[in-house]
């Protein structure tokens, strides 16, 4: 009675990136679509997935095989992880990455997310929440990857987004004006996070009026990609950016979509502009391939690697330095907490006496509201009350937040939105648990328990 189910995958096809038209349905040319598919033979039409879909993208009546409407689907994978029959499948780039790993010219980089380190071990029999950090880095290295922890990029995200938020506070709350604040004049509060690609596609499709509120800062992965091919290529790895093959390892299937967004080739544009690569180089994306945690486990299995048996010892590398703020990104409320730790420090000049802002942690609640008093150094300690909200799971809650803001748009200054209940730890790319009999389990003889 394994605790983790096997999920079927399928490779991308030529049509997955769309045709020549600029738009096909809701997708732009080049954006990956059809990332999640329901197997028509295995689906019994039980309607469980329908309840978990945040955008009502699943069609089919009770008892009849269901299908996903590509236009409405945000590729979050909640249907997939909740299907009792494992009838939903994911587009996988495992074969493509395996090929790259075998290519001696390619400098393949694994970019693992915070939520992956507390779940990937489940694929190898560990209990839920088992933390594998150095063991994971060692496993990736043995598989042929170089490591660049997304958490490092997450810290970068906080610095960027925190700065952006503070500018908005200075302009919209404190009434300051200036050249450096011109940009935020077009972006009123509340400020919404942008790191969840399912949330972003949801907003673009169903709540476009929120677009000006969404942070312009990219997600940690989409910062890591450009930094790998510009900063790290030049200052750390000393490699030609064109040889770097960035593979993010995510708890999320929507990240597969995010990486394919045509505008996410910033490194290429920057390098061309600064004449660091020839002008006729064909464009390349910042992130070349996305593997879910399950996909990464599959690569380990194919190569006979078990992260749980790898050594826990490892020298700290520049590319893997991260703070506590970064690692909690994977839990609902984590981005908010991380942003507040830094924003508080910048605005008040002092660190929070207690960095654990449990007030904003999502846990099992749908929407968490909190007010964080921040003393402003620039105004001699005058306190502003920063009103925040954490949306823990998109299903009903995005509409609820929109309703509340329509009622009173000043209700919140900062809103974190995570599509998946509980945060990325419960993402569509994570190991799928069978949720077996909890009290029966300890009574079973050992062979049946594994």
């Amino acid at each position: 009675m394994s605790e983790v189910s096997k999920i079927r995958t399928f490779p991308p096809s030529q049509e997955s990136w769309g045709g020549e038209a600029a738009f096909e349905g809701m997708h732009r040319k080049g954006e990956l679509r059809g990332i999640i598919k329901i197997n028509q033979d295995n689906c019994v039409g039980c309607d469980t997935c329908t309840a978990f879909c945040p955008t009502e993208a699943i069609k089919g009546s009770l008892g009849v095989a269901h299908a996903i409407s590509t236009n409405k689907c945000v590729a979050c994978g909640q249907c997939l992880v909740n299907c009792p029959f494992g009838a939903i499948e994911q587009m996988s780039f495992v074969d493509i990455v395996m090929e790259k790993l075998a290519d001696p010219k390619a400098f393949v980089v694994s970019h693992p997310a915070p939520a992956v380190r507390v779940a990937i071990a489940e694929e190898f029999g560990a209990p839920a929440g088992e933390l594998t950090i150095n063991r994971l880095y060692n496993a990736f290295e043995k598989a042929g990857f170089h490591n660049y922890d997304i958490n490092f990029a997450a810290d970068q995200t906080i610095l960027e987004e925190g700065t952006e938020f503070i500018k908005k506070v200075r302009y919209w709350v404190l009434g300051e004006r200036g050249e450096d604040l011109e940009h935020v004049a077009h972006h009123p509060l509340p400020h919404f996070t942008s790191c969840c690609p399912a949330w972003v596609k949801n907003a673009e499709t169903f709540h476009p009026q929120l677009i000006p509120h969404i942070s312009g800062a990219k997600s940690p992965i989409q910062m890591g990609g450009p930094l790998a091919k510009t900063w790290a290529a030049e200052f750390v790895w000393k490699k030609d950016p064109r040889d770097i093959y960035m593979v993010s390892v995510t708890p999320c299937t929507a990240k597969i979509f995010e990486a394919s967004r045509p505008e996410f080739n910033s490194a290429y544009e920057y390098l061309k502009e600064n004449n660091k690569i020839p002008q006729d180089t064909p464009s390349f994306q910042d992130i070349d391939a996305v593997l879910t945690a399950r996909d990464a486990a599959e690569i380990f299995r194919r190569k006979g690697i078990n992260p749980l048996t790898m050594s826990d010892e490892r020298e700290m590398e520049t590319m893997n330095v991260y703070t506590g703020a970064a690692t909690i990104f994977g839990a609902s409320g984590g981005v908010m907490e991380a942003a507040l730790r830094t924003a508080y420090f910048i605005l008040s000049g002092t660190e929070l006496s207690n960095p654990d802002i449990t007030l904003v942690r999502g846990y099992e609640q749908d929407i968490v509201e909190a007010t964080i008093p921040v003393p402003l150094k620039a105004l001699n300690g005058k306190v502003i009350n920063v009103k925040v909200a954490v949306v823990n799971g998109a299903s009903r809650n995005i509409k609820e937040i929109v309703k509340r803001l329509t009622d009173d748009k000043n209700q919140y200054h900062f809103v974190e939105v995570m599509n998946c209940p509980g945060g990325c730890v419960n993402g569509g790319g994570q190991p799928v648990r069978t949720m077996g009999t909890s009290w029966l389990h300890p009574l079973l003889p050992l062979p049946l328990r594994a």
Partner: protein
Amino acid sequence: MSNERVLKFPMSEKMFHNINMVTWMILAITGVLIYFKQVGEATALLMMTFHIGIAIVFTLNFVGFVVLNADRFFLMLRNLLIWDADTFAWFKNLGGYPRRLFGIPFGPEEVAPQGRFNAGQKFTYLFFIFMIFGLIVTGWLLYFMAPVLGKTTMVYFFNFHVWGSIIATVMAVGAHLPLAVINIEDFKAMFRFGAGDVPLEDALHHAPKWVENDLVKVSTLEQPLKAHR
């Protein structure tokens, strides 16, 4: 005496049984058509609507019987739960049916005396009652609470509902129904418009211990009684 008859199925039991039977068959047929993908999507939607609507009748029928006729229900359970030496002895020759129906000389010729239900009926009907209850519970939980149940529970309930109902239907149609037709007096008693009585000879043949222990003469009049519930 050809005039002597025994009330075997009171009206409440006939009502329960017959409504149960009709609704069960509609549920089974609609269910199988949908599950085995024998119909197109629009028809499947219609079938499912029937399935749910008839399921309401099926549920109320069972619940109504248990609640409004609790005495009959508990009496029936008591009869089904009498497992004595004669009950187990019945299995030695499966009540004599293989010999009688197919000429297979299985076990002794003598059948151990049975009560209200023979041993085969006891196990079958206990299974049927368990299935009726189980299908009602799993059915409504699947319909209303699928996402809440959790995946493993969902799969167990779903498979119980689909395969349990199929097994029970096969037993009902393949064993229960033919045997009922063979015992034609029981069949007539169950389905006629009127009292569910059988000849005393039949009762003595099939359920001598029931006649001996549970029955009482209700009339000493020459002319027959009017049927009453």
